[in-house]
């Protein structure tokens, strides 16, 4: 069954990233905000962490996915963008600096016959651990400031895609 034919699609709100790598963990920070709220049964709010292959079952079991992740796209830190990739080839290969090759996973899901619709929320980040920058769980001020806005955006998108009976 394709996603478009589902009357009440199951929605996955997925934050990915590494909580230990400063701004890289913004996706997890957003999900932690949303986890505190009440959601309908068909909505799963998931801290995907650096889950890799562990996330495949979730990708296969939901028709709609709202994903939030950090990106280093050269925009000013705290810039929030919404991407709606029409096909897997539109997906960035890796968004940022954590382990998960999300496009690899979506391609794997497609091989198993699952083609969830994905909306991607990216937050441009300033500081991640890297050459000479050690681990930390703190967000940089400019990214911390947009956390409520990012959470509100993801919340709205989750409701929107959950309502749509067809794409």
């Amino acid at each position: 069954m394709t996603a478009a034919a589902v009357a009440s699609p199951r929605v996955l709100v997925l934050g990915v990233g590494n909580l230990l790598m400063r701004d890289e963990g913004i996706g997890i920070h957003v999900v932690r905000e949303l986890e505190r709220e009440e959601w309908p049964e068909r909505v799963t709010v998931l801290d995907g962490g650096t889950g890799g292959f562990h996330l495949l079952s979730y990708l296969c079991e939901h028709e709609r996915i709202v994903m939030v992740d950090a990106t280093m796209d050269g925009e000013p830190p705290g810039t929030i963008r919404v991407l709606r990739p029409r096909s897997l080839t539109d997906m960035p290969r890796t968004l940022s600096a954590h382990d998960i090759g999300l496009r690899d996973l979506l391609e794997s899901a497609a091989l198993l016959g699952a083609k969830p619709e994905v909306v991607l929320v990216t937050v441009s980040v300033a500081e991640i651990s890297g050459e000479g920058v050690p681990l930390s769980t703190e967000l940089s001020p400019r990214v911390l400031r947009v956390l409520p806005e990012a959470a509100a955006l993801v919340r709205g998108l989750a409701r929107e895609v959950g309502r749509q009976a067809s794409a």
Partner: protein
Amino acid sequence: MANRIVVDPITRIEGHLRLEVEVKDGKIVDAYSSGTMVRGFELILKGRDPRDAWAFTERACGVCTTVHALASVRTVEDALGITVPPNAELVRNLMFCAQYMQDHVVHFYHLHALDWVDVVSALKADPKKTSEIAQSISNWPKSSPGYFSDLQKRLTAFVESGQLGIFANGYWGHSAYKLPAEVNLIGVAHYLEALEWQKEVVKIHTIFGGKNPHPNYLVGGAACSINIDDANALNAERLAKVGSLLEIAAEFIEKVYIPDLMAVASFYKDWGAIGGGLSNYLAYGDLPTHGYGDPEHFKFPRGVILGRDLSKVHPVDGKNDAEIQEFISRSWYEYGSGDGDGKHPWKGETKLKYTGPKPPYDHLDVDKKYSWLKTPRWKGNAMEVGPLSRMLVAYASGREEVKEVVGAALKQLDVPVTALFSTLGRTAARGLETKLVAGWSKEFYSQLLANIKNGDTRLWAGEKWAPETWPAEAKGVGMTEAPRGALAHWIVIKDRKIENYQLVVPSTWNASPRDPKGQMSAYESALIGTPVANPEVPLELLRTIHSFDPCLACAVHLYDEKGRYLNQVQVL
């Protein structure tokens, strides 16, 4: 003049290791392995509550996630003198086994098989012949000509769409691929089946750990409660689910993974003489059957083998400061006592001092410091860790069931025991231990059910939970075997807070730079002599490195903002 190949990053799907190797006359003559991202866990953990450390260390990696939590809770328990109840040990063992089965199968099919299996060649296979071969090696039911024919059509459509996707990174058509088209098709079929299979097996982590990825652990026990009638507890239904997942896991390993491993290996026996590298092997051991405090009764025994001498197993003591030490003479750190020094992890220091080239760079300055990984040594010796080390230590310790499966595999392939010391041996050892783990997991499961039936539902020892019960100072070490090899955490607790915390992870043992004596670590050493037919497509190099199952997510964290992948190989 030798050619230098740079492969950065090296893992197929998740990667952040940089290798620089030199090729001369079709063989690798020199190799440098670098972790290009700093970690510094101690900096994040210092001053925190020791009972929370597992939740941070677990985030080190998405693949080894549970093993860091396990090492961490054991470390704190060791420091505080806590013994967990038998059921908690069993729950931990079951999570450990689930992790091994999932991780090793994923490694074989999704991270390593495509070094041996040519996906594009599978398009030319004859489905009928494929079916005959599949049925000759296993009674796995999905083996009809129609099944393989349908699969081939799906695969053809996928390839013709121009979206090779996860298959895009292979070196299809390379002369080093030796499998007949039909065996390639079996490999691809099981690649897809394994994807489907693995997403079920990991649900064991959700049942015991409340969530996955990053399941919950607990100092003193397991983070769940047993009540067979309670909807929210580990109840009869959930326990039955674990039992059925273990059955499904074991059947796939027995009927798909092992037959495929043997079939593929039989075409690549020459790899039983390539990629051996170091001759020393270290295993901390794991899977306690009489509690973590009694390593003699671990399913995977603890010990060291030196010089490939299987007649002697040396004991290992994580607390002896003359045994495990970390060196930084070739790593971007500095020690207060000087760069040549080796430090036991309890006295470990993490003072960053980057002296490498300013990125982006073409080459590391490999004559100086060239990695963010420290270099661990056991009594000054470079050690390989991982499945091969575990199987060799168990074999040399005289463990009958291990000797049996290893002996049978050697006989089936008609290769001598020395073939174990190789790229092929490493890959085979991983499969053989998976088979053993699948069997052991059923023993642990039966024991857990028997305990519950007898009225023992204890999962947590809470006597020393409150910090007021702790001594002013305490030190601990927690050892485990991650799928990739020996893993240990060391903690120093002072005034009820973490004073020092050090991780020595498997990929640090295997992927670290040279030590002050110039001795190579496992990756570098194993690459020497590995043939490279075409430096532009160094498939052979990947075989040897992938045989270790590199997961630098464990050792150092990746950065890949340019999205550079395996197929971008520079030849300089």
